[in-house]
């Protein structure tokens, strides 16, 4: 038995990746939940919004790289991120003006808006593939590791190593900053409060003199920022591929629903719930168990519950369990 090594292995393969992935999901789910709360529909185009923002960021990253600009150990993409956000904001505001606004004025039923978002999804998906192509793009540069396996071993003298990728560190730090800023905005500023008021009770918000178009516009701006940040972090951590981003829709929706649609806090909790379950269920526990259990009990097989190809199944099963036993989600969202 060697609990220390077991814990290090666990951290290396489960905890750290899950925290990073959870942060990315949480940021994505925050966008979905904000649109659901304010505009009152589930936005199927969210994955592709993330892809678009990331694509713009990648294009700027390439531009900066060609100029020789860099941030040293930190990926150049962070420098390009604000431009990606701006690009994404422009796209979303444009979409809102030419597409969604009409249906809002018609007071269309939410499900119509969902179908409209399918159309937007097609267009954004096509746009991204048209501009950058359907292939994998890696755009991470700079230092690869904050702590590499080797330095960790040398530092601690342990048998097992622990690596923290730069992208993972950046993901967590960025996510914390973004989430803190978002909550500060929603809970402390007049505009943020007016958004919450509008989400809570549209008629009363109108009576209080809150301008709905302004609320909607700010929502799109925030969603653009969240989606781009989430997309870029995911792309840095793994890689950018339009189809993968489209597929992220499922875990992101699952996170938002598990947490309770419309509840920002829930979106974060949901993101981490889904990420941890996905990573833990698809991780081969052999090594950890080998350290943690007495030798006689150590498993022969990989001790993997499900192959990684079934990670969608994990988010789905968790989603089902939550829906069956607590339909409003962990943090009671809008049960409209």
């Amino acid at each position, binding site marked *: 038995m060697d609990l220390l090594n077991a814990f290090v292995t666990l951290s290396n393969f489960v905890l750290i990746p899950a925290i990073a992935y959870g942060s990315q999901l949480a940021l994505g789910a925050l966008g979905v939940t904000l649109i659901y709360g304010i505009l009152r529909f589930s936005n199927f185009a969210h994955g592709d919004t993330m892809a678009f923002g990331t694509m713009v960021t990648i294009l700027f990253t390439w531009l900066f790289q060609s100029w020789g600009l860099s941030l040293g150990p930190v990926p150049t993409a962070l420098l390009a991120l604000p431009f990606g956000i701006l690009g994404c904001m422009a796209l979303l505001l444009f979409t809102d003006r030419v*597409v969604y606004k009409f249906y809002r004025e018609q007071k269309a039923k939410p499900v119509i808006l969902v179908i409209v978002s399918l159309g937007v999804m*097609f267009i954004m998906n096509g746009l991204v593939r048209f501009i950058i192509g*359907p292939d994998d793009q890696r755009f991470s540069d700079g230092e690869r590791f904050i702590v590499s396996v080797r330095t960790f071993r040398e530092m601690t003298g342990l048998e097992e190593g622990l690596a923290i990728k730069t992208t993972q560190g950046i993901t967590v730090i960025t996510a914390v900053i973004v989430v803190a800023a978002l909550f500060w905005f929603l809970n402390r500023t007049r505009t943020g409060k007016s958004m919450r008021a509008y989400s809570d009770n549209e008629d009363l918000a109108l009576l209080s003199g809150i301008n709905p178009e302004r609320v909607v516009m700010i929502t799109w701006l925030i969603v653009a920022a969240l989606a781009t940040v989430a997309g870029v972090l995911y792309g840095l951590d793994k890689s950018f591929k339009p189809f993968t981003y489209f597929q992220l829709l*499922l875990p992101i929706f699952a996170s938002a629903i598990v947490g309770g649609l419309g509840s920002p806090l829930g979106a974060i909790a949901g993101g981490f719930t889904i990420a941890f379950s996905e990573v833990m269920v698809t991780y081969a526990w052999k090594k950890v168990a080998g350290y943690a259990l007495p030798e006689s009990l150590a498993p022969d097989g990989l001790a993997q519950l499900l192959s990684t190809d079934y990670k969608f*199944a994990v988010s*789905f099963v968790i989603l089902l369990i939550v829906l*069956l036993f607590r339909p409003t989600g962990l943090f009671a969202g809008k049960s409209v």
Partner: protein
Amino acid sequence: MNETLKNTALFGLVAVLIIGTGFLQSWNSALFILNFGLISAIMALGVNLQWGFAGLFNVGIMGFVALGGLATVLVSMPPTTEAWAAGGVGVIVALLMGAATIVVTALVIKRMPAGWMRTVVILVLLIGGFFIYRALFDPSVARIEAINPASTGYLGGINPGGAAWGWMTLLAWPVGGLLAAGVAWIIGKTALGLRSDYLAIATLGIAEIIIAVLKNEDWLSRGVKNVIGLPRPAPYEVELQADPAFLDRAASLGMDPVTASTIWVKLVYAGLFTVVLVILFVLAQRALHSPWGRMMRAIRDNENASEAMGKDVTARHLQVFILGSAICGIAGAMMTTLDGQLTPGTYQPLRFTFLIWVMVIVGGSGNNLGAVLGGFLIWFLWVQVEPMGLFVMQLITSGMADGAPLKTHLIESAAHMRLLTMGLVLLLVLRFSPRGLIPER
């Protein structure tokens, strides 16, 4: 303009488009569009049943279509006897074991009073059941997949005659429907009765899971190694080309034997598909105008009032959800038959779920005729936008120097025009003709 005239004109337009393709491109591609158009029309009928009749938002069509494909493999392929001997029983026992675990757990949830005791029992049952299942399942699967992995490595189907019994494939179509209906029942039981978005998410998820199963469970579907050479109900081109009677006929029509044989095969399929489409269309039409159909629409338009009138809304929704999914399953089986192979890697939600939605919305939700029209029209667009896009791009870039990076990029990216176009078509129809080309009456 009167309605019949307008509808005839719209279908006439589709016919002109397809025949035009025949004259301008080739009859092979025209028939390709026709065959897939027929299948798309059937899928659209199924979705229209769910969305148009009952307002159910199913975004897992791809999963049901894929199940139909799996049914084709399971019914039409010859069994791999060695594989059955090696691990067939083991796999089946393991699956039964898994199912039993779930049933017992469900019973416990229903029968036992809530409390920590129940939670513990459920956890023990599920975790224990899972490990027993894996213990039974894994070795059998390993044995099956070890058998001649290059060509089989899976259990195969139930067709004892193999390629000679091509008609068995026809049986796969209803089986595909049944398989899809079974899965739809499970999803419907859990997700219906909750909010509509939840059905959407549940179907979205189950579709991904079905594809994941097809891709990874090699013992079942050979996974990404694909099952090729499915026995087929239509004659083989090679046989036709060797058949003197057929060669004579081709010669008398002035066609070369290869083209004639491919066209003939496609025509046979077109005939089969048309029969299925007509049967399903008539059934759907009768359902729509029956008291059942009226009740469905009443429920859709005002759930609360219908519930107050004593209609069991959830049960009716479950019915229509199962029916619609079964139709998608049938269409999926037909498509795999037409392809002659099951390739799990090619199932993509944009093509198999969202495109069908575009068909239904554009054609006219709530109208079967509209769904069929949408199926043909959108499928035609889907196929033809690519060459059209390429043409437009060549036109745009004609002024640029050859080899200019922008020109190469634009021409290479022309293929992605179809997604853009589909989105645009959907948005335009929603905006300017929200009830579709042939609106519900």
